[in-house]
């Protein structure tokens, strides 16, 4: 994305110059935000407008600027961003620009350029030839890298207002137990279909409650029908899912009858042991040991999954990445085509993944505990839509809406 700011002065309102300029911008596939508009008080007073335009195509933006210049729109004089070199690995230069999760632009050699991989709490690394810039976390930065410092020549593209048709237009991250869940499920189903149609990926971030509450079959249906394309979770979701697949219990309780199995508390350890013996989840599926459940569906349907470890994990399963930095880096590398993130029944993984997502990814957080959604929003994922409900009825309704 490329962006420029223009100013217009004079009697452009009476002359219809402003609508002419704005129409031209839209007709040429660019977008605008009127950042300021001051209308003259007396008839003779001039008015003033400042408009920012954004286009995916640098050449098209140049052409557009030339054309609207004829109608009185002049480029606002702007300055390039300031750069400084990192002096040691893992340490940003003093005064580094700390990023948000929104689409950010930096001005290099007189041109506004989109910063790649928008992510909050990073620095903006600029290529040595100043031909590009990207968000980089502490762990990826090396001595000698060039970083943006200060706030000159940096601007943020606020999120587009969603269309009226979109569930996100009337919902915000304000948590309420009183939102009409039926319509919400319908709207989310529509977003899911839309994503699939546009070839964007749907990421699920799920906690073990998906299994405890008996929602695993719905989750499997979503995987099988192509509505979950990527799964991030911890050891627990996989361990409970596999326990249920192998023994019919989750944490020792038969899910179909709701009663504890004899020596059931051992089941999840035995499940983990079985997978460790096979060498991993994929191997267990290939060896015919693991025949159903969420993890089985992921392997069978080629849905990549990432299990990130934590300090209280049992086992863990061989697939779990226990180095958190490595887990973060692997997650980042998998996010590029994600359009929607569905976070269900997990606090820590929701916040962790939320931190990595650009604000443009629609985020839906479903949890019985309102604090989870609040936490996510408080940590910067303001774009999240919160739904306070038990995960099982929510997924059941979503499956119904999607006819799966």
């Amino acid at each position, binding site marked *: 994305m490329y962006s420029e700011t223009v100013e217009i*002065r*004079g*009697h*452009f309102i*009476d*002359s*219809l*110059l402003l*609508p*002419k300029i704005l129409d031209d911008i839209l007709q040429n596939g660019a977008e605008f935000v009127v950042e300021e508009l001051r209308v003259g008080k007396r*008839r*003779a007073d*001039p008015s003033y407008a400042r408009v920012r335009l954004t286009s995916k195509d640098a050449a098209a933006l140049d052409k557009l600027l030339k054309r609207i210049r*004829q*109608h*009185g729109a*002049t480029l606002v004089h702007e300055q390039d961003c300031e750069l400084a070199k990192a002096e040691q690995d893992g340490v940003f230069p003093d005064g580094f620009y700390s990023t948000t999760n929104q689409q950010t632009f930096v001005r290099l050699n007189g041109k506004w350029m989109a910063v790649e991989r928008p992510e909050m709490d990073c620095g903006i690394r600029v290529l040595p030839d100043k031909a590009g810039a990207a968000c980089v976390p502490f762990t990826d930065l090396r001595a000698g890298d060039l970083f943006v410092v200060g706030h000159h020549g940096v601007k943020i593209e606020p999120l587009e207002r969603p269309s009226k048709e979109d569930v996100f237009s009337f919902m915000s991250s304000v948590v309420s137990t009183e939102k009409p869940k039926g319509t919400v499920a319908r709207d989310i189903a529509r977003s899911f279909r839309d994503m699939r149609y546009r070839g964007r990926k749907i990421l699920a971030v799920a906690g073990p409650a998906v299994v405890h509450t008996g929602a695993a079959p719905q989750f499997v249906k979503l995987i099988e029908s192509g509505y979950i394309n990527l799964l991030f979770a911890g050891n627990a979701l996989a361990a409970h899912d596999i326990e249920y697949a192998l023994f019919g219990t989750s944490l020792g309780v038969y899910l179909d009858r709701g009663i504890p199995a004899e020596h059931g508390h051992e089941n999840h350890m035995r499940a983990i042991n079985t997978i460790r013996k096979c060498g991993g989840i994929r191997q267990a599926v290939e060896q015919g040991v693991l025949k159903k459940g969420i993890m089985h569906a992921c392997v069978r349907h080629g849905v990549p999954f990432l299990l990130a470890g934590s300090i209280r994990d049992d086992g863990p399963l061989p697939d779990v990445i226990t180095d958190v930095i490595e887990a973060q880096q692997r997650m980042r590398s998998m996010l590029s085509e994600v359009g929607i993130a569905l976070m269900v029944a997990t606090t820590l993984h929701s916040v962790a993944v939320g931190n990595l997502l650009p604000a443009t990814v629609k985020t839906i957080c479903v949890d019985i505990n309102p604090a989870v959604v609040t936490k996510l929003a408080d940590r910067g994922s303001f774009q999240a839509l919160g739904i306070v409900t038990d995960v099982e009825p929510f997924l059941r309704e979503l499956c119904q809406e999607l006819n799966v």
Partner: protein
Amino acid sequence: MKFSLFMCSPEYYGIEYEINPWMSLQRQADRALARRQWEALYGLLTGEIGVKVELIEPAPGLPDMVFTANAGIALNGDFISSNFRNKERQDESRHFKDWFKKKGYRIFELPPHQFFEGEGDLLFAGDTDAYAGYLIRSDVYSHAAVAEMLDRRVVSLELVDGRFYHLDTCFCPLNEKSVVYYPTAFDTYARQVIEANFPDRIELTEEEALQFVANAIVIGDHYIQPPGGARYLRRALQERGFEVHELEMSEFMKAGGATKCLVLKLAETSEGASGSVRDWSLFREKT
């Protein structure tokens, strides 16, 4: 608005270059005939109409100096000098500025990159509002600057037909409510603006517009135009109480000009006398 007029005799007039679709070096103007046509206009204005006309000495090598409408804007003792787009006409400004300076006018100039061709592209409708054409000769930026100098609303109109390269070739306000114009010479936004500002519109056909009947001098209820407009315009003007004067302008039309192009208004408004002009210092000519 009280005013006198400013003209330049066609001593050196001729087609010496081509800077609009009307001009052709193959179609030379007859200088003697041009002189007679100019004198007929001068005679009508100073005689029957009874307006004071001031004259500037024509300069050799500047054939278009006869079109004084393009010299600038003269209002309340101030003169905003034109910035001609075509280098062929740029030398005229020096002569015009000298004349106005001698007459005691304060001279104002626009930044050099803002083209502006005076009354050719800026016309008053009543005392308060001005309409200004842009894109072909004048820049829209100059409108904002001139509006500030004049402390008046200047409404910009985009011109889209090269044959009607100045606003005064296709647009002639009769007063603040009525206008004679050729709609096709304007883009759709400008047409909407004209419709919104003039409840009474006399729309010319292409045939009439090409007769340059909008390039007219309006003084009181006199409408002074080259021959034409028989189809609609004449009756429309008569219905509104105007007396139509037709003057042969054949030689000047070879350069894309007619009656209006040959005169500049030296205007004085009642509000101007009280000194309503704001900070002009930015634009004042460095002396």
